């Protein structure tokens, strides 16, 4: 029983204890502070432990408890991969708890949130630690269950109930897929310990099946298209800090599951597995961000953009697979590092953005961007950190989003060395998709920030808005700082990731911190290099230089006046561009194939008094192709079978009789 693992296991235990305490005391006034304080401390401790392990790199440690599956026991293991994801999870947990300290006070139904929040954290930690199929699935499903309860927190809202329903059904679909995958890995003898699976190498067919099942299982949790349908419903339905956890952290846990099985347990991948993952990743990225662009509900927009980032991560995981399959460890290490780096970054800025959305929600009670606007005047701090989040997620230098996307592109540029033609053709196409999604992401967050925080207030609620409490602001500020730091010091992150990549792809990226001026050089300096720090410094210097000169030599005169409204004296706020109208050009360009969208304008005859109307109809193609047929089939089957409930006794007897006769016939004709 390794002491580190023991300590890490005490964490979930403490979480569960908090859950019980919360269930008991959730109606007390102090309960909120108590619970979030406790989770804050616990996840901080876990974070420190995991980070220490990642930095110190003492190899792997494991422990077995006499729980779970009797003859296997509940096995737990801490290696580079799980340490890294523990850092992701508990960093998120810590900061979210910090945020919760403030945000939780506005919660109308604390007794439906407080008990499940620590349980959720416990579940995620256990998934990352589990070392046998049973404990893994148990924690996995426990995580889903806890988050489902949190989604159902505001259960009087019909939409939330629907979201929760779809969420849990999809979750258990995913669990079933994982269950089958583990069944294949475990074999008929039922060796469910990961260590045993690692040594046993399945045949090519089984390996392929496992990969597909993992894409279904982990993918449905991470939100890969077309399994994403639940995500934009469920993530926004939860209280905002939980949305941040679900979107920023839980999807990463799903990615951990995928990596753990496909990179670790499955052994050597086949080259086409790379193709599959790449394609799905690229398509997910583009469709996700297009959906996000069309949204006008702030939290749903963020949820969809989560789908996009998941797509990016999977695409670069697919690259890593392809490289690994072709024995190019260094390139594989590059792609894999890029993926993990993006995992970390996305957990930063997505949490930050959801916190911001939560702050807006508390301040105005609105999630609909069409009713917001001009908040930059009411919520100066929130709007500033939210802006930083937007810049980071739009992959703009010198922030962290750009650093990881840059690495992904560098990895793509290694791909011509791949032998297979399939990959040769796919990779540049996927590269194009990623570039497209990056550009669209920028557009999407111009819209998100511009409509929500800029312009003039579109509703009275905004006029009354006030800056949120200190705890929330602190949490958001910390995350913003992380976004900048990870952006200007990417070398540090990359180096600490070497512990993870080395065992999984058999290689690591060259040491970065040794580079002059802290720049990052994935392959060779002559080839490509990027120095976030210097870019940051240059921009600051030149901006301040310019400012200085202007200040020194140009006029200072400044006059406030009404804006130019094309001759109209006082343009009403309603005259501003709305979220929908902002997205209109892009909808015109991409909507045709992405949403089968159609615009119909009915313009009244000249002189007629009724207003002209623009009708836009859009379809969620994935939903119509994949989900409606299934529900339709089930409905049809139930409709038909249901008659069997209303037969008469004689007919039931006939059933029995026929069944008997058939069996007897079979027996009579038995050879």
């Amino acid at each position, binding site marked *: 029983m390794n002491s580190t693992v023991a300590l890490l296991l005490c964490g979930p235990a403490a979480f569960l204890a908090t859950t019980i305490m919360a269930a008991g005391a959730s109606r007390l006034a102090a309960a909120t502070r108590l619970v979030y304080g406790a989770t804050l401390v616990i996840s901080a401790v876990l974070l420190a432990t995991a980070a220490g392990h990642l930095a110190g790199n003492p190899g792997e440690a494991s422990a077995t408890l*006499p*729980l*779970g*599956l*009797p*003859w296997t026991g*509940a096995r737990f293991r801490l290696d580079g991969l799980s340490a890294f994801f523990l850092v992701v999870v508990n960093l998120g947990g810590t900061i979210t708890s910090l945020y919760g300290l403030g945000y939780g006070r506005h919660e109308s139904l604390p007794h439906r949130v407080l008990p499940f929040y620590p349980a959720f954290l416990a579940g995620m930690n256990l998934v990352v630690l589990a070392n046998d*199929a*049973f404990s893994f*699935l*148990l924690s996995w*499903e*426990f995580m889903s*269950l806890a988050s489902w309860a949190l989604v*159902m927190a505001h*259960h*009087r809202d*019909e939409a939330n*109930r629907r979201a*929760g*329903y779809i969420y*849990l*059904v999809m979750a*258990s*679909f995913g669990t*079933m897929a994982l*269950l*089958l995958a*583990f*069944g*294949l890995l*475990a*074999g*008929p003898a*039922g060796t*469910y310990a990961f260590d045993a699976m690692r040594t046993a190498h399945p045949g090519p067919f089984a390996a392929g099946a496992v990969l597909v099942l993992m894409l279904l299982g982990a993918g449905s949790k991470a939100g890969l298209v077309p399994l994403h349908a639940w995500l934009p419903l469920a993530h926004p339905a939860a209280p905002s800090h939980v949305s941040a956890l679900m979107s920023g952290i839980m999807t990463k846990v799903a990615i951990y599951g995928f990596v753990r099985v496909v990179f670790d347990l499955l052994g050597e991948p086949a080259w086409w597995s790379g193709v599959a993952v790449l394609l799905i990743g690229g398509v997910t990225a583009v469709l996700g961000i297009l959906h996000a662009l069309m949204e006008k509900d702030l939290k749903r927009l963020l949820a969809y953009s989560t789908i996009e980032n998941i797509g990016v991560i999977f695409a670069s995981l697919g690259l890593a697979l392809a490289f690994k399959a072709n024995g190019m460890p260094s390139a594989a290490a590059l792609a894999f590092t890029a993926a993990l780096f993006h995992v970390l970054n996305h957990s930063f800025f997505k949490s930050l953005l959801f916190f911001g959305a939560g702050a807006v929600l508390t301040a105005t009670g609105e999630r609909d961007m069409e009713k917001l606007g001009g908040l930059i005047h009411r919520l100066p701090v929130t709007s500033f950190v939210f802006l930083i989040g937007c810049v980071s997620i739009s992959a703009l230098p010198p922030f962290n989003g750009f650093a990881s996307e840059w690495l992904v592109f560098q990895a793509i540029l290694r791909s011509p060395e791949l032998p297979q033609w399939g990959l040769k053709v796919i990779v540049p196409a996927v590269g194009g998709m990623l570039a497209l999604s990056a550009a669209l992401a920028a557009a999407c967050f111009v819209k998100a920030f511009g409509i929500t925080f800029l312009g003039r207030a579109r509703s009275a609620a905004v006029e009354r808005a006030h800056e949120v409490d200190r705890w929330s602001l602190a949490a958001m500020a910390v995350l913003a700082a992380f976004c900048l730091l990870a952006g200007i010091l990417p070398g540090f992150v990359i180096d600490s990731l070497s512990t993870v990549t080395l065992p999984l792809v058999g290689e690591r990226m060259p040491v970065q911190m040794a580079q002059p001026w802290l720049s990052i050089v994935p392959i060779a300096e002559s080839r490509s290099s990027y120095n976030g720090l210097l870019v940051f410094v240059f921009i600051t210097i030149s901006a301040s230089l310019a400012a200085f000169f202007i200040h020194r030599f140009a006029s200072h005169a400044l006059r406030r006046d009404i804006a130019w409204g094309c001759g109209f004296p006082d343009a009403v706020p309603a005259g501003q561009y709305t979220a929908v109208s902002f997205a209109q050009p892009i909808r015109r360009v991409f909507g045709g194939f992405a949403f089968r969208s159609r615009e119909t304008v009915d313009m009244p005859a000249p002189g007629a008094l009724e207003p002209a109307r623009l009708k836009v109809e859009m379809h969620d193609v994935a939903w119509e192709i994949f989900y409606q047929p299934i529900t339709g089939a*089930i*409905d049809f*089957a*139930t*409709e038909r*079978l*249901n008659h*069997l*409930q209303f*037969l008469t*006794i004689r007919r*039931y*007897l006939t*059933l*029995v009789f026929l*069944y*008997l006769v058939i*069996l*007897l016939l079979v*027996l009579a004709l*038995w050879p």
Partner: protein
Amino acid sequence: MSGFSFDAVAAILFVPAGAAAILAAMPNYRMTATVNVIASLLTLLAALSLFVTDRPAPGQYLLVDDLNIVFIVLNTFVGFTTSVFSASYIAHELETGRLTAPNLRFYHAMYQIMMFGMNLAFVSNNIGLMWVAVELATLTTVLMVGIYRTHEALEAAWKYFILGSVGIALALFGTILVYMAAQPVVGEGTNAMVWSVLIEKAARFDPALLSVAFIFLLLGYGTKVGLAPLHAWLPDAHAEGPTPISAVLSGLLLNVALYAVLRFKLLLAASPQAIGPGPLMVTMGLTSLIFAAFMLYRRRDIKRLFAYSSIEHMGIIVFAFGMGGPLANFAGLLHMVMHSLTKSAIFFAVGHIAQVKGTQKISEIRGLTESHPGLGWALVIGVVAIAGLPPLGIFMSEFLVVSSTFARHSWLAIPLVLGLLIAFGALLLRLTGVAFGEPRGGTAPVEASYVPMYSHLALVFAAGIYLPAPLVAWFQHVAGILG
């Protein structure tokens, strides 16, 4: 010592029988309820004493072995908790006037007779005796299903009665055939019906005759297990009878029939040339699972809903036993125990819910977790458990069944998984409606007996994350016996 332990077996049988006689004679209904509880408790203790005492040598009529001790203990335990629940439930029924004091006397007496019948079926070492016992248990439950004397209650009882009788007849013919098969080997007389003798010599029986026999037995007892398409009696009987009886039906009577099927499966497995029972059971299991899964969607009566879920789970269990092998059999046993505990707990909750809301219509029950948190969350946990979500016990068994099946016959696992998912969708749909949302229906505070349901759920939860080693060893041994 052995003398005492035989007394244990005797106690298991005679405590209920005696109690029935006393209860039939007692005037005061409060007393009858208490006596009922006490008698069940005594039976439970007697059953537990089977662990500490050494077992009697198998006689011509009675037998205690590793297989049936599982069932006996489970049976007496759930019987006891149900009696506790029924005490509070029946009191309420009496206040609302749905039952009268004479009804009650009859009810409690019948309850004990039923317990007697089921225990007898478990401990009997004689296939003829077992048949008689099962018939007895069935008849008593028929009478109890009809106890409300309402139109639809009589409907249900009648349907149950007719289909049950045909089942009984078929089972009897199967039993006769087994005797015929045994007679040339064992010789005439009672010995040819004694289980422990049969299993030894089964290898030399005429396999073809055994096969025919098994078909009749499977259909006969399968009717009681509620396997589709023999299930028709089950939903109505569950829905129309008093809820304690629904709990007992789902939790216990189905197991009795299942136990009978298992016994004969062993017999058949012992004679290699006979048709393998596996494929038959797997087919019936899958049919029931998928059929019930679809039927769950259109249910409007909450008790009927869970009755269908019982069919579904019986399907899973029969499937598991049909698959055979240590993993699947272990899973089957575990699943059976877990299902009994969970389903009876659910029915406890549902019973009180139906009482406070004054209806069994799902559409008229809303927002339970808000109006009656105790009951509501109990129902949520119960459904989550029955739907096979961790960290509750059924998850473990489903985990084992699905994964081992997929590793052995992948193409069998697909319909299994589909069935599970479809059923899950339906159950969750109904749960979302009932437990959440704007509260609707009566909000009167309920004097429910939370102890039985929560103790069951606690057991299920504990089993989900930790199975004590002796229990595991024992299950594995039984799984080994089941081959």
